[in-house]
């Protein structure tokens, strides 16, 4: 598979042939042969429905999955470090120091019996060996950075004393406290009200531009993905099926699943007509079909779709889609002379 080429020579993240299996009978193939690069300061949006393996991919980058039940193969490099070989203190230094994570529901991801200030300061003390006073000062600075009003007072608040949007801002402040080079955002707006969602998205985009970190943003919402990302990767049944710049994928999706996702969008839908939802449900990750996983739901499926390996169509600027028809269409276009 062709990885995304990056703008600079040394990518911040280099994932190659990553697969994640959860032990069980039968084992669950949560992530299958995923490869991608992320340049420093680049925002990659991973788009997919629930259970497509996007959160698992993200958690694997921090090695947050339960070790005993998980088998990870492939390679992950973040900032030149081989993440899969990290152990003990080195792994803890990676988490929160080099790469940190924003969770979907901040009311679950923050410790209920510690104040926001304590939780941020704790991270700073852990990674930078700062004194308590300095760490608290940094916590205040971070709360101001994420534009929490009356930040000084909020330092002493417990998570349950804040609103959902405020909590997510605090979570972002916590994640950014040690200036990570990579920010992993796991559906950070899904648990929020629509109006608050937009505020958080804008905040994230501003902070990304201000601090210049690389971001991997996981979501099932195309609108959200388009809003924040430079590049998109569409994920289905544990595999990337199409990647490319946001513009290219939105304007000219090649994989039938990406097309389906775009068609199912509410924007531009005619009231009173049925939405073009993608029919059927994703396959069980414990029993993936041979060949293209999307074939059973695909309107254009043919015999060639259930034979491995599925050919990959590649376009310019790191675009590719893994689809029999996309590849054939290109071949025919190529034979007929390029326009």
């Amino acid at each position, binding site marked *: 598979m062709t990885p995304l080429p990056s703008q600079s020579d040394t990518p911040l993240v280099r994932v190659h042939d990553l697969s994640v299996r959860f032990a069980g009978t039968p084992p669950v193939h949560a992530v299958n042969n995923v490869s991608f690069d992320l340049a420093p300061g680049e925002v990659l949006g991973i788009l997919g429905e629930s259970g497509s393996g996007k959160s698992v991919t993200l*958690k694997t980058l*921090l090695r*947050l999955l339960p070790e005993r039940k998980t088998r990870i193969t492939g390679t992950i490099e973040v900032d030149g470090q081989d993440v899969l070989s990290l152990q003990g*203190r080195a792994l*803890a*230094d*990676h*988490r*929160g*120091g080099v790469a*940190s*994570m924003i*969770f979907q*529901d901040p009311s*679950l*991801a*923050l*410790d*209920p*019996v*510690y*104040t926001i200030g304590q939780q941020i300061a*704790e*991270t700073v003390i*852990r*990674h930078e060996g700062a004194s308590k006073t300095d760490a608290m000062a940094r916590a205040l600075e971070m709360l101001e950075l994420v534009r929490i009003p009356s930040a000084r007072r909020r330092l002493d608040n*417990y998570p*349950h004393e804040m609103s959902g949007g405020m909590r997510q801002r605090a979570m972002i402040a*916590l*994640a950014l406290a*040690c200036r990570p080079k990579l920010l992993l955002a796991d559906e950070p707006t899904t648990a929020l009200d629509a109006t608050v969602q937009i505020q958080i998205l804008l905040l994230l985009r501003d902070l990304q531009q201000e601090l210049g970190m690389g971001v991997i943003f996981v979501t099932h919402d195309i609108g959200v993905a388009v809003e924040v990302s430079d590049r998109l990767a569409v994920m289905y049944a544990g595999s990337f099926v199409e990647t490319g710049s946001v513009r290219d994928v939105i304007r000219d999706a090649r994989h039938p699943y990406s097309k389906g996702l775009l068609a199912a969008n509410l924007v531009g839908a005619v009231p009173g007509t049925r939405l073009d939802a993608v029919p059927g449900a994703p396959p069980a990750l414990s029993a993936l079909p041979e060949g293209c996983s999307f074939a059973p739901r695909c309107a254009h499926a043919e015999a060639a779709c259930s034979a491995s390996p599925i050919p990959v169509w590649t376009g310019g600027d790191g675009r590719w889609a893994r689809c029999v028809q996309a590849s054939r269409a290109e071949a025919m276009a190529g034979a007929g002379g390029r326009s």
Partner: protein
Amino acid sequence: MISFILRRILYTVPIMLGVSLVCFALVHISPGDPLVSILPPDASVELQQQMMAIYGFDRSYPEQFLRWLGRAVQGDLGNSIATGRPVASEVFNAVGNTLILAVTATIIGFTLGGLFGFVAGYFRDSWIDKLATAISVIGVSVPHYWLGMVMVIIFSVELRWLPATGAGPGGSSQWIWDWEHMQYLILPAITMSVIPMGIVARTVRALVADILQQEFVSGLRAKGLLDRGVLAHVIKNAAPTALAVMGLQLGYLLGGSILIETVFSWPGTGFLLGQAIFQRDLPLLQGTILVLAMFFVILNLLVDVAQTSLDPRLQRG
């Protein structure tokens, strides 16, 4: 926080009043004449009435209650019918002995229970979890008077390592923390610690296992905390609930165990209560129950305050 404590203390006043009323009433609704046990069977009616007057049983119930309450507040719980000695000093002695036993049992039970529970919850479904769970289930299920007797048979009768009964040469009033006395404490304290150990272990195991399942633990790991840092968070999250359970258990132990104190002839409140019941010694019974109930009320107050200061979610609720 201070206003919460004051309010909470204020709440205990009606509770204490209610408790004392129940104490008083309990004894009076129980059938039988309290003076039967000290009067000769052929006592004259005159003598009976004289004794009734001395103990105040001839007045109306509300009057008896108020007089009894008034004296109780001043520390006078009347005289024991059986021995004639002041109830307050009898109870005071017994409470001291029970405290020695209960606190020792508590330290053993809570330390072991907390440890077993934590390890079991942290390494859930491992062999160490199964072992700790088995120990705690056995601890809760085995009848402790039976365990006491078995321990006496093994360690006192067969091995002759430890004395079987009593509280040492100083008796009930002069306890000293030396080996001569402490050897009397070991068997009853261990026997008494088994149930709280089991209950605390099971509670803590469930708590820790539940907390480790929560997403914020992933959050803690994601921000780079080492295991000991995560551990501190788990302990602080588990503490309020664990504390409530421990407080309740401590309350039960402070009440003394009639069974254990009887098996080991330990002169504590349980032993005293047993005596008072069998001898129909009403003032002693009332006094003992009242003091124990007050202990429970105060202990609950302390647990509430401690719990509230540990869990911010309770504070403003």
